[in-house]
């Protein structure tokens, strides 16, 4: 129980760090750390019923989110030779304040929903929802394609957190499928990013505004 709470607190801190971070490299590292922490969540949270299933799932999550993604994204940064600055639409301090506000709203929202007994911790649902909103905020408030991919990962981590809390009900096949989809999604986004860089000489999405009515 204490481990679960520890990881959840880590999740909140990493999200706030991301909202306030101005460096691409450290953002990628923070998202990687978040992925590893989430990978450990099912193992530590359900320690009394450890099985091969949880082991496999944890190993897969840590390998993909903690190792493959950061490697791939760092490669993207190197290839694109972008400056290391994040370039937000919304400033870092404003982002941080919004983050704290979102956190409060998430807790308030979850106090009003009937929580199922199977949830590992009463903090789990609000923090999962906080991650989802933080991810959405990162996607809309950052110019760079890379930051948007990171935002998507944070959002996905939030959804995953909620899923892990309910782990007994889902199944290995579906979880493996979800993991595979996220993996391919980031892979395809990464490739698209290479092309965006080649085509526009940078990975700002700001100039991608030709298609409209």
């Amino acid at each position, binding site marked *: 129980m204490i481990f679960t709470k520890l990881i959840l607190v880590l999740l909140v801190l990493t999200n706030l760090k991301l909202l306030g971070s101005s460096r691409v490299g450290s953002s990628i590292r923070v998202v990687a750390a978040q992925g590893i922490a989430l990978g450990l969540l099912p193992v530590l949270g359900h320690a009394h019923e450890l099985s091969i299933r949880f082991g496999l799932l944890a190993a897969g999550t840590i390998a993909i989110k903690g190792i493959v993604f950061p490697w791939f994204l760092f490669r993207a940064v190197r290839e694109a030779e972008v400056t290391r600055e994040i370039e937000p639409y919304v400033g870092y301090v404003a982002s941080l304040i919004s983050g704290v506000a979102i956190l409060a709203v998430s807790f308030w929202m979850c106090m009003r929903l009937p929580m*199922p007994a199977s949830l590992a911790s009463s903090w789990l649902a609000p923090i999962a929802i906080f991650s989802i909103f933080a991810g959405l905020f990162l996607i809309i408030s950052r110019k760079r394609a890379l930051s948007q991919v990171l935002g998507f990962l944070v959002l*996905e981590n939030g959804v995953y957190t909620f899923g892990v809390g309910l782990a007994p009900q889902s199944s290995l096949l579906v979880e493996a499928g979800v993991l595979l*989809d996220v993996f391919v999604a980031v892979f*395809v986004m990464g490739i*698209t990013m290479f092309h965006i860089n080649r085509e526009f000489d940078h990975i700002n999405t700001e100039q991608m*505004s030709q298609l409209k*009515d």
Partner: protein
Amino acid sequence: MIFALVLLPALAGLLAFALPKPALRRGVLIGTAIIHAALTAICWKFSPAPTLNEWLALDAAGLLFLSITSGLFLLASIYAAGYLSQEANRKFTDIEEGLLFDNAPEAVFIGCLLLFLSAMTLVTVSQHFGLLWVAIEGTTLASAPLIYFHRHHRSLEATWKYLLICSVGIALALLANFFLGVAAVNSSGENFPIVLPALLVHAHDLQTPWLKAACILFFVGYGTKMGLAPLHTWLPDAHSEAPSVISALLSGAVLNCAFLGLLRVQQIFVGAGMEQFTRDIWIALGVASLVISAIFIIGQTDYKRLLAYSSVENMGILALGIGLGAAGAFGALLHAINHSLVKAMLFLLAGNILARYQTKNISNVRGLLNATPVTGALWLAGFLAITGTPPFGPFLSKFTILKAALDLGHGYVVIATIFLATLGIIFVGMATAFLGMAQGEPEKVTIATNDSKWQIAPPLVLGAMVLWLGINVPEPLANLLKQIASTLGGAQ
């Protein structure tokens, strides 16, 4: 059998990545499409046994959408094979800005196309909501490289928007799956897997607040993919920048897959006797889609974007139909078939026009009937069909939905009026564009060659099918539609 349907295109797709010869790859594409269509046809006769703990099963709704997907894919693959042989190994000058670009490697195109078919098939046979989610996200990922076939910055922008918007939307649908997992308890309070038959058995024991929260997230997630306004923003860009054959598949097959995902949700709510909750959402999204598409169709200058907005409109009609109960659901399902056929036909024809006139601008295309009689005539027929003019199929399905609205009485007259008014506006908007393109004298710049057989045959077949559906809905199909509609409409 079900495994064969899903795995065959997946394996063929992986094979296509590896095959060295273009002719061989195109052979694999068409061969797979033919076998897939044949297997689907067999499913009508002998319904395949459920496998994998009933996670994969082909029910009536699945069979309907599998047939649409498989049939469209067969025709599209024939068109694609011809298209690729024409586009192979050339540098292109961009028609709008005059810059040079090349195409994605053909192996990637065909490989992704086949993986795309596999993902769509998985959508139609999934009874487990988690698996359904995996499959729908799979269709997004397999089709993104297809949109970026022409390598220039506009298609890149469209691909990025498509990927990001749909992935975020679908991530919310994943959250909905978890919510559904929480809601899924039986009468003794134990959780069970979120498989459709089990959910229907225990429908009355489901936890209502979580079920409703799940429902809203499902509508946001799959509604984005289906292109319901105001979540449709990726749709016009992706449809206008993708190669026409891909636009045809996106509009005719993918939007339906997301629609099927939402129909599964609707089935649960009908089972639980809470369909009033979802009906209001369906109607609201339907009316929003109709109104917003009507606004953008008027004065549209790009004919592929025009067709894309028409897809938003038709998705709105489908949503409206489902919101109107069993009779409306029957019309909506019939309209799903009609729309798939007509829209695929129109996008393929748009590809022919684009190849000949080298412009997507409506006002630069003149004299289709003179320059290319068959394409021109089909283009006009397609216009009449999509706007719901008799004797084509969409007339019948739109009329069914309208009648369903009027039969419901008082409050629904307003909705019927909005429905008719937007259809009228869209008719005028599309008539201006289509008639202008068809009539007049073609300009000299058009390349004077006849359209080849592969450019004509697939749209011709689609057109004939729509006409046939307008005159006579075959008995087995009508029975199938009634069967599905009864699971969607609940008590009147």
